[in-house]
């Protein structure tokens, strides 16, 4: 959100081409890495994602898209790069893709410096495993919500679903996390019992 304000302040007279140009290069500087990180999770091909980002900026410019007047520029860019990367990926890798399953890489590591006792470590590992088994869309919404700090309104626009569906998807992610643990706990308990008997 701060970034959007900065762009506005840099643009006292946004109609002037020089200022627009400046605003665009600021935008490129500010968002390219984030966009690459997001896009690469759908399509682990450096060249394709880079091309998509480059093309996106140029398209915005050609459409005279006034970035200074757009208060939701971040979610706009995320939405645009998502559409573009998925479209390109489909084109270049069509044989390998299953319908509906667009894939979203989200993997976690556990910072062992922060966790000292083994019970907590076990729990952390369970959470990690549980997130990994979530469907791609649920992983994506977790990423957008907690690691890009976007709100439900922005997320629903990025993922091209309505607000209620986004809300439901997030709730589903929480409850499938919970369900997953119960299974893991159950397995754990059973193993323990077998071991004891």
């Amino acid at each position, binding site marked *: 959100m701060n970034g959007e304000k900065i762009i506005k302040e840099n643009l006292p007279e946004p109609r002037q081409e020089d200022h627009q*140009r400046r605003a*665009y*290069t600021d935008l*490129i*500087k500010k968002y*390219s*890495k984030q966009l*690459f*990180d997001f896009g*690469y*999770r759908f399509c*682990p091909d*450096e*060249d*394709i994602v*880079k*091309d998509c*980002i*480059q*093309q996106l*900026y*140029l398209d915005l*410019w050609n459409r005279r898209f006034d970035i200074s007047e757009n208060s939701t520029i971040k979610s706009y860019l995320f939405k645009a790069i998502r559409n573009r990367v998925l479209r390109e990926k489909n*084109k*270049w*890798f*069509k044989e390998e893709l299953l319908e509906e399953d667009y894939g979203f*890489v*989200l*993997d*976690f*590591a*556990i*910072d*062992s410096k*922060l*966790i000292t006792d083994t019970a*907590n470590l076990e*729990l*952390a590992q369970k*959470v*990690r495993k549980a997130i990994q088994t979530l469907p791609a869309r649920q992983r994506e919404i977790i*990423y957008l*919500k*907690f*690691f890009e*700090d976007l709100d439900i309104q922005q997320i629903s626009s990025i993922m091209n679903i309505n607000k209620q569906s986004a809300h439901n998807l*997030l709730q589903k992610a*929480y*409850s499938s*996390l*919970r369900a997953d*643990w119960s299974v893991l706990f159950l397995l754990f308990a059973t193993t323990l019992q077998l071991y004891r008997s």
Partner: protein
Amino acid sequence: MNDYRNYEAEDFLCDGFFIEWVLNPKPEHRVFWQTWLSENPDRREHVRKAVVIIRALQIKPNDKQLSDQDVADMSERFLHSITPKHSRLFKLSTRWTAAAAVLILVVGTILFKQNRQSPDILATTQSSLVKVYNDKQTPQLLQLADGSIVVLKSRSEITYPLKFSSTNREVFLKGEAFFEVRKDSLKAFLIHTGNMVTKVLGTSFTVSAYDGDNGFRVMVNTGKVEVSNNQKSADGSAKASVILTPNLQTVYQPKLSSFKTNPVSIPLILSPSLAKKEFSFTNAPLPVIIKKLEQAYGVTISYDKEKYEEVTVTASLSKLPLDEKVRAICKAIDAVYEFKDGTISIK
């Protein structure tokens, strides 16, 4: 708001409002959780445990990140492409272009209409066309306006504009050629061979299509290439199309109107996996390096054999396009080079 009274660490861990407080706290989270904790001191331990776990779970970074240099390149490319042509300053970074060369071999033969002449597309560009026919026995080296390199085989013909249009880079080929295409994400590189269109995401390859031949073949060394039998241009609405990645080749089967794609039997020397080994030299004699380049690209490189026989070079050249490979070598041995009459000479 959920009733958190009986929550344990596991429950907090899957509560959105709680996770937000830990990761991206806003005033409303702070107010709520501070009040709640003071009212429920017996839950403190559970909360602490959940907080530790959320903090300890960190996203593994992707195996590729955008570097500061990449971002600077993007900015530069952006400015370059929005600047009107008459005032354009050519100051393109070579870094990116070199890193992303695509090598393709297209061997095309066409049974169907061969009389598709280039000018109907190129007529729209004001730029004049150059037609080169190689009547020699040896391949001929050409460099196009964008820096891309073409090795035109014997009995082959290529037609290309002196300057490319602002929207794409189109060339027309009869016979066989090897292309090393400069990366330019804003201008697609298209090779028309009869009704076949080979579209490059940005690199090098060989195409061949001789008159009277009855096969069309494309081989890819590096990068990605889309081949289609589109009548117009490769705009995605092709009747049949195929995507090729390194060490794959495709042959068009006119009767079936489809492509047959196979791995090549021996990995191509310029494919990333082999090139890394084949073009990393440690104290290698210059003649060995030159020989390797000649074989890989099918070009002739002349140099003073006596003078350079003993000279050795240590260099890693696998990621550079041909002209930059030669430039790097020349820099190492303090020589200069020129492209002349379809060959390279080092002096």
